[in-house]
């Protein structure tokens, strides 16, 4: 037997010995996958009575909490849940990472799933269908890396401990030593950067993240460290460019997408937002927070485009925002008000139709309806409709605004002023606003002339 084969056999023995002592959880909705993986692991040395298979996220979560397995294999797609959600629970249950593994075994080959797994720092990502030899090799390498880390990794871990123990100067020295141990010491630069940030030297921290990225542009920790340093320094444009890069490599993180949207609006990069909206449409699990951020960002962008004269694009975005808003009436209202303000009452009317039927008797809906009526119908109809609403007790600032303005335009100054007084009693902080509407709105001469003719 040659030396290489002998070494391989020793490694296999060590790996089998490692596996034999570990409690293993396999979570997969597919029975054949659970059985296959369980058999494969037992064949590699795991003890059958220590391998547990479950077919749902909830059962897996419960098992994790009670039995604290050393190794978890799970599918990315676990019904309504994502297997990655188990990772944080796993790390809580087993904070000592040295002899634990979290492995995704999945048919999901999408870059978004892979990037998400990388962000969350899984140990392995194994594709289905896998070859058992490939699985063995991947697992044994991962175990070896953990149990016999390189000098570089050992030194980084030493530095991390010093940093956690609030010994930044000692930590810095250790990370600088680590840099000599690797041809691509990106991680050492990251931790050195973190140490400087802890010491409030954000500029030096930033330089270290940048140095680290020169060796490896994909390094997630350096990219996020750099982003945070730039934000701390108020360099929002640069932070936005870095964040775009992070989001490109690690797409579909809803929290990150919210940050990107916020920064895009802050830095005036409205045209990017259309692209982000397309990405949002692909996000499977849209959190309410993400929906709100995207609606707000898309509305701001739509306004910007209309002001720029890009009517088709702007209107398309307004309608996209309305569709995304669903039943979030505060956004529907904002869209309608903006469209009316920018002279697109017909488009506003289309958006009004998106209100849930059960809200059509609400003050908000009726106020918006009156506003649109004031733009699309005659003054007399608007005044008449507005008066009806007030008789019915629909006391909404918007209703009063519309009817005061419409009355003033119709030449009904006394009526307008009386309404303004009445509104001011209900909303005293808006007294000036109502009064200005009553007194400064110009009369519509054509209406007054026709009204006089009718009177004659």
């Amino acid at each position: 037997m040659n030396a290489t084969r002998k070494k391989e056999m020793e490694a296999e023995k060590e790996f089998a010995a490692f596996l034999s002592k570990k409690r293993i959880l396999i979570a997969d909705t597919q029975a054949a996958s659970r059985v296959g993986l369980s058999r494969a692991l037992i064949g590699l040395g795991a003890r059958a009575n220590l391998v547990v298979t479950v077919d749902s996220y909830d059962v897996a979560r419960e098992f994790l909490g009670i039995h604290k397995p050393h190794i978890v294999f799970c599918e990315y797609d676990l019904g309504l849940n994502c297997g990655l959600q188990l990772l944080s629970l796993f790390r809580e249950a087993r904070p000592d990472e040295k002899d634990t593994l979290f492995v995704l075994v999945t048919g999901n080959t999408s870059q978004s799933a892979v990037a998400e797994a990388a962000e969350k720092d899984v140990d392995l990502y194994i594709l289905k269908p896998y070859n058992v030899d490939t699985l063995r090799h991947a697992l044994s390498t991962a175990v070896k890396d953990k149990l016999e880390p390189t000098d570089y990794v050992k030194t980084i871990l030493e530095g991390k401990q010093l940093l956690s123990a609030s010994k930044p100067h000692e930590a810095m020295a250790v990370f600088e030593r680590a840099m000599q141990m690797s041809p691509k010491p990106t991680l050492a630069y990251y931790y050195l950067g973190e140490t400087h940030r802890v010491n409030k030297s954000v500029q030096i921290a930033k330089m270290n993240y940048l140095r680290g990225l020169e060796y490896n542009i994909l390094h997630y920790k350096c990219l996020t460290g750099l982003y945070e340093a730039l934000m701390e320094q108020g360099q929002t444009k640069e932070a936005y460019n870095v964040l775009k890069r992070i989001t490109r490599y690690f797409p579909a993180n809803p929290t990150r997408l919210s940050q990107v949207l916020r920064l895009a609006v802050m830095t005036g990069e409205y045209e990017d937002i259309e692209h982000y909206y397309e990405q949002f449409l692909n996000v499977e699990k849209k959190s309410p927070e993400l929906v709100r951020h995207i609606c707000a960002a898309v509305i701001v962008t739509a306004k910007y485009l209309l002001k720029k004269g890009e009517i088709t694009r702007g209107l398309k975005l307004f309608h996209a925002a309305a569709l995304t808003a669903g039943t979030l009436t505060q956004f529907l209202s904002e869209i309608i008000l903006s469209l009316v303000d920018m002279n697109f009452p017909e488009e506003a009317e289309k958006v009004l139709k998106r209100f849930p039927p059960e809200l059509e008797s609400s003050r908000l809906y009726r106020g918006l309806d009156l506003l649109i009526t004031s733009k699309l119908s005659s003054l007399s109809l608007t005044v008449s409709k507005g008066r009806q609403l007030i008789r019915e007790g629909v006391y909404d600032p918007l209703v009063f605004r519309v009817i005061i303005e419409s009355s003033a335009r119709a030449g009904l100054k006394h009526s307008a002023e009386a309404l303004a007084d009445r509104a001011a009693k209900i909303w005293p902080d808006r007294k000036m606003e109502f009064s200005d509407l009553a007194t400064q709105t110009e009369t519509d001469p054509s209406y007054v002339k026709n009204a006089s003719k009718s009177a004659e």
Partner: protein
Amino acid sequence: MIPGLLENNNLFPLSSDDFKSIEMKTTFVNTTSRTSPPKGSEHDPVVVQLSDRSFALEVPAKTCAGGHNLMITIELKNVNREDFSKKVRFVCTAKVVSMLPLPKDRERIIVNLMQFDEKSWNDFREVFEARQKEINQFLEACKGF
């Protein structure tokens, strides 16, 4: 300094391709019993494990037995991230050598390849091996060890 890192760039995190996964559609005809599994995606066979000259599938129960010959067709879509229109098709005749009952009227079978095109088989396996390699490299780069 890395060009374009801090300055404005044309990077847009918008590629819907990032959400595409390799799609595998497996069908078979039991040439021994001259039957096929019922139609409908809930009955579709699923390949779960590969070896050099065999593979494991999850199939509807009672669609085959030990020793039966199956003509299996596997079609892969979205196989190449540079060109998502590329497809791979693998057709073979295989013999059922092992069966294990599973819950919910399913079975796990292992089949040995009998008649197949070597190149097609290699192309089929290469799809997953290549993607696995890409994933390993990506994870390594992200962690930076």
